[in-house]
């Protein structure tokens, strides 16, 4: 999962934003703290960013900031769980979760009228993974339980869910975003789901 990095200077040149803007967006939490990485270079310490993520984010901010205020933009981009809830019908109507996934979740959630935002994320995550065909029915349980039990531990921080297999045995783990993780050679990473990206997608779909 090593990513290409870009230095702050290059980033500003490429995107045409100023230091003031960059710091303002950082202050408003439009650009997550974890993306600011300090590395030592020959000219002292410099800040680096994960290249594609940060450029994508800045373009998004530049495109959207005319329409809505920075604060509501921050709400949309931050992985904080919103108060938003939705009913089963809404989820299906808005094409967020498929009927089959809802059926699957009933074993755990039971008959639910209103899903909390966190539950919706878990459903959306599962739905995406089912649709991509990477995981099967029983493996969905693994992912589902891990997410439901452990997501709160991240307290709104960005995180990733990694699904992997070794010799036909599957497992999954969750870790903070932009952290390095290494597996031994026999392990095949099937899918990396970035939860904060999922949440962003979800928020756009739901609002």
């Amino acid at each position, binding site marked *: 999962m090593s990513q290409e990095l870009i230095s*702050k*200077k290059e980033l500003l*040149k490429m995107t045409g934003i*100023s*230091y*003031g*803007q*960059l*710091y*303002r967006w*950082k*202050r408003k939490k439009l650009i997550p703290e974890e993306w600011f990485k300090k590395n030592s270079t020959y*000219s*002292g*310490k410099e800040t680096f960013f994960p290249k594609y993520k940060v450029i994508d984010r800045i373009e998004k901010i530049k495109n959207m900031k005319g329409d809505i205020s920075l604060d509501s933009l921050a709400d949309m981009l931050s992985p904080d769980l919103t108060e938003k809830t939705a009913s089963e019908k809404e989820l299906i109507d808005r094409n967020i979760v498929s009927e089959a996934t809802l059926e699957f979740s009933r074993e755990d959630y039971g008959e639910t009228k209103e899903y909390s935002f966190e539950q919706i994320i878990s459903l959306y995550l599962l739905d995406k993974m089912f649709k991509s065909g990477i995981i099967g029915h029983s493996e969905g349980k693994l992912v589902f339980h891990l997410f439901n039990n452990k997501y709160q531990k991240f307290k709104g921080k960005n995180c990733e869910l990694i699904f992997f297999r070794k010799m036909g045995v599957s497992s999954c783990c969750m870790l903070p975003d932009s952290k390095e993780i290494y597996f031994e050679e026999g392990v095949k990473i099937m899918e990396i789901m970035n939860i904060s990206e999922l949440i962003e997608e979800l928020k756009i779909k739901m609002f």
Partner: protein
Amino acid sequence: MESASDLKIYGQGSSGGGKFRDVIIKGSGQINGDLECKKYEVFGSGEMKGDLTAETVMVKGQFKFAGQINAVDLQVFGQSTFNGDIFADEASFQGNLESTGDLNAEICKIEGGFKIDGLLNVELFELTMHWPCKVSEIGGTNIKIKNETKFSFLGLKNMITPHSNKGFLEVDTIEGDEIYLENTHAKVVRGKNITLGPDCQIDKVEYQDSYMDHEKSRVESAEKI
């Protein structure tokens, strides 16, 4: 918020925290947990062990914050210590400020001195320096660092006490759009428009549009990018 009650500590006392309308400490107080309120006022001394979320925070005296602070308006007079990050729309400090975390504010005015281990991230920053200051990084839009000029209580105190006015700001990097510096020792200063006043020692200046030197400042290298 409507139904919340007030918390008042007069004399000496402590509280576990919680949700309140107004919190007033006169004397010495200790808050042991997270606290959320509209108005937070301290006259005297105290310690806050949890996170504080408030609309206005005013401290006169000596106070120690161990957690994070979220405030619209933060005013501190006296000696304050922060161990968590500070988020405020408007922050003003008079006296001495020490922080191990970051200080984030739209408008930040400091008169006196400070030591910040983290990043000072501000839209508009005005520092009137009365004694040595230290911070690892400053980032923002409009950054103004001045040695004391205006007549004030702290200025008067400095005039009559010995070794006054030897203050300078020690900083690794300053990055911003409009930058004015006096009495600053920095490794790197990067910005759009940089103007130097007297008594700066800067290793490297990188500027985009304009750069003004000062005869009483020393700059190792200046480069237009």
